[in-house]
């Protein structure tokens, strides 16, 4: 069964490159092709002629203007823009229109699981993100992401102000954000290397990662090294946890606290390493304060073999600390994932992810202590703004069940879509 699904995935992957080739002219139309090529060449010639005449026209116009302004000195420099200068409409320069982008994330998910959850056994628009942002004033910027889905209600995923004008070069974020917790949860799902969030993130923080209303400050430690940077982020966020997350309870009144230390080493243009440490504290029980703690470690190594061939190795580990002795549960459940992603060429990337996570409420009689999953995926980069991905997942659950899933994902972006640096 597993093998046949893998085969199906591979077949599907092979369809993509062929679709690109589909437009090639058939061989029996040689005459027509030759004519087409002749026409193309003619058009190219005409284009070149128009271009050169345009250039000459401009030169004359400029000379004319220079003469009129009497500015023909020893340095004739075109200080004034040429007539066909680009309209200054680059993103961020446009006067007062907010930057608007839209991102559609369409996924098909084939699963053996009976659960009727997000996208099981169907093709769905998992997310349609409406991204709106703009500079507020020289010191702050507003960003928001509104998520539509054909399975859930409209959600306000992000709506926050970034503020730079703070003392000590502090940067602040206020509003609904993806808090700086580890790597995977702090980015949008469309920036992940896999279709789904790593299982440990899904299980502890939420299927879509964690987004909360929060106040967050970050600060680069003023250390003298050239190639090493350290950034500390700390925040307070509303209580509760992401959808189906189990780390904290659902009470939003009790705030949670988080801190993150990011250490980044630039070995060279080709190799860099990031080591991160996260601490989270909050509550599960509405009557208690900060009785659940968790620490996270993340490590990401990036190496470029050539400018096109990039290898990324990433791993995150989360360890909980709580008191569940009375309930007969593990006090220190933990989980991790390890991911390897390799960009084969400008168009293709492959990768794999291993997941291991101990469920927080695993019953003693369960045959296994943890959920384990093996994932393999292939990504086709159509352009900067469109990407296709097929992922196969074999899951062995703590309760004894096994599942094999196939995800197919298409992500397209229109309008302005800029990601924050991570």
């Amino acid at each position: 069964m597993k093998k046949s699904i893998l085969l199906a995935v591979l077949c599907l992957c092979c369809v993509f490159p062929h679709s690109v080739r589909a437009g090639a002219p058939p061989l029996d139309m040689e005459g027509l092709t030759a004519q087409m090529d002749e026409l193309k060449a003619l058009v190219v010639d005409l284009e070149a002629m128009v271009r050169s005449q345009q250039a000459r026209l401009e030169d004359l116009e400029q000379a004319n203007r220079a003469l009129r302004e009497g500015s023909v000195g020893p340095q004739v420099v075109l200080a004034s823009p040429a007539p066909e200068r680009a309209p200054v409409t680059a993103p961020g320069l446009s006067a007062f229109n907010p930057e608007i982008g839209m991102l559609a994330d369409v996924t098909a998910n084939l699963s053996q699981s009976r659960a009727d959850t997000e996208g099981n056994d169907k093709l769905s628009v998992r997310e349609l993100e409406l991204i709106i942002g703009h500079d507020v004033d020289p010191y702050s910027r507003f960003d928001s992401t509104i998520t539509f889905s054909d399975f859930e209600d409209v959600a306000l995923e992000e709506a926050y102000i970034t503020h730079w004008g703070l003392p000590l070069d502090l940067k602040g974020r206020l509003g609904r954000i993806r808090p700086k917790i580890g790597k995977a949860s702090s980015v949008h799902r469309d920036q992940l290397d896999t279709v789904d969030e790593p299982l440990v993130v899904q299980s502890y923080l939420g299927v879509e990662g964690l987004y909360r209303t929060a106040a967050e400050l970050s600060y680069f430690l003023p250390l003298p090294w050239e190639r090493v940077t350290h950034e500390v982020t700390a925040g307070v966020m509303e209580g509760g946890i992401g959808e189906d997350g189990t780390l904290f309870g659902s009470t939003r009144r009790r705030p949670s606290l988080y801190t993150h230390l990011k250490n980044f080493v630039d070995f060279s243009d080709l190799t860099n390493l990031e080591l991160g440490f996260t601490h989270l504290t909050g509550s599960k029980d509405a009557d208690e304060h900060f009785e659940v703690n968790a620490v996270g470690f993340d490590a990401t190594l990036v190496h470029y073999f050539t400018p096109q061939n990039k290898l990324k190795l990433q791993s995150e580990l989360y360890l909980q600390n709580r008191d569940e002795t009375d309930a007969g549960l593990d006090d220190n459940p933990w989980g991790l994932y390890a991911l390897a992603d390799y960009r084969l060429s400008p168009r293709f990337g492959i990768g794999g992810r291993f997941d291991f996570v101990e469920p927080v409420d695993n019953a003693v009689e369960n045959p296994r202590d943890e959920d384990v999953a093996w994932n393999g995926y292939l990504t086709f980069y159509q352009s900067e703004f469109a990407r296709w991905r097929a992922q196969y997942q074999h899951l062995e659950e703590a309760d004894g069940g096994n599942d094999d899933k196939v995800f197919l994902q298409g992500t397209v972006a229109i309008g302005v879509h800029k990601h924050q640096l991570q």
Partner: protein
Amino acid sequence: MKHFFAVLGALWALHFSAGAVKAETIRVVATLSTFADLVEKIGGEDVEVSFVAPPRFNPHFIEPRPGDVLKVRRADLFVHAGLDLEPWRYPLVDAAGKSELRPGGQRELDLSQGVRLLEVPAQVPTRAAGDIHIYGNPHYWLIPDNVRVMAVAIAEKLSEVDPVHSEAYQGRLRAFLDELDRRVEKWRQDAQGIRGKEAVAYHNDLVYLAEFLGLRVAQYLEPKPGIPPTPRQIQFLEGYIAERGIGAILQASFYPRGSSDSLARKTGAEVVLLCQNVGERPECGDYFALMDYNLSQLTSHFR
């Protein structure tokens, strides 16, 4: 206690002496090594210049690192290409969070201002025409006329940010422009054998050089700027190259060689590597060396 004050005093002295050293030079961060080279030529010892994009990488697709964010944050001047050459500079400047360096700020310099742009679309830009180059061709520094404009803009901006050294900047600008004039004459002579010849290129980043040298480059391995070569485009180029008797496939060294090499094998054309940016190859150590190298590559091919 005495020790405490002594240490405090020493720290205070150190702080101010560090400040005094800083006041003598201004820190300039450029997006590209080529711009950094021009700033260095005009700023000389009065500036401390660095760049973000490693020249061995495609300047369109760079992932700035945290060290770059810090570098930009500490900069007195941020120099960039404008247009859509470096789409990554927006999140970089956002992350650095210094309002003067942001678009329209007092301490940013958009080098596209005033240069002569080619291939500016007549209609409203659309992504159907490719991911990048939607405001016109942004690789505008490979034609010396534009470099003159850029050098003048750099000198003006440096004088504005650091008026104390204004005279030195103007002096170095004159020296640079004189040197450029001399070189241009030589380059024009060297290019005699290239005039009227035709080549194809990997990415549409050579129109300015082509115009300067009288070379014709009209077809690219990338079907649209930023879109990797497709089998269909390669097939078209096979016919095009054969029909027009083209002998050269031009590309920067950071583009993959696979498609160009296979096209070269099929058509008998030769892949000619050219520098897009200063430092991309050891031979391209500064702007003059880069142009020298590109010319020697082309002349030895078309000889």
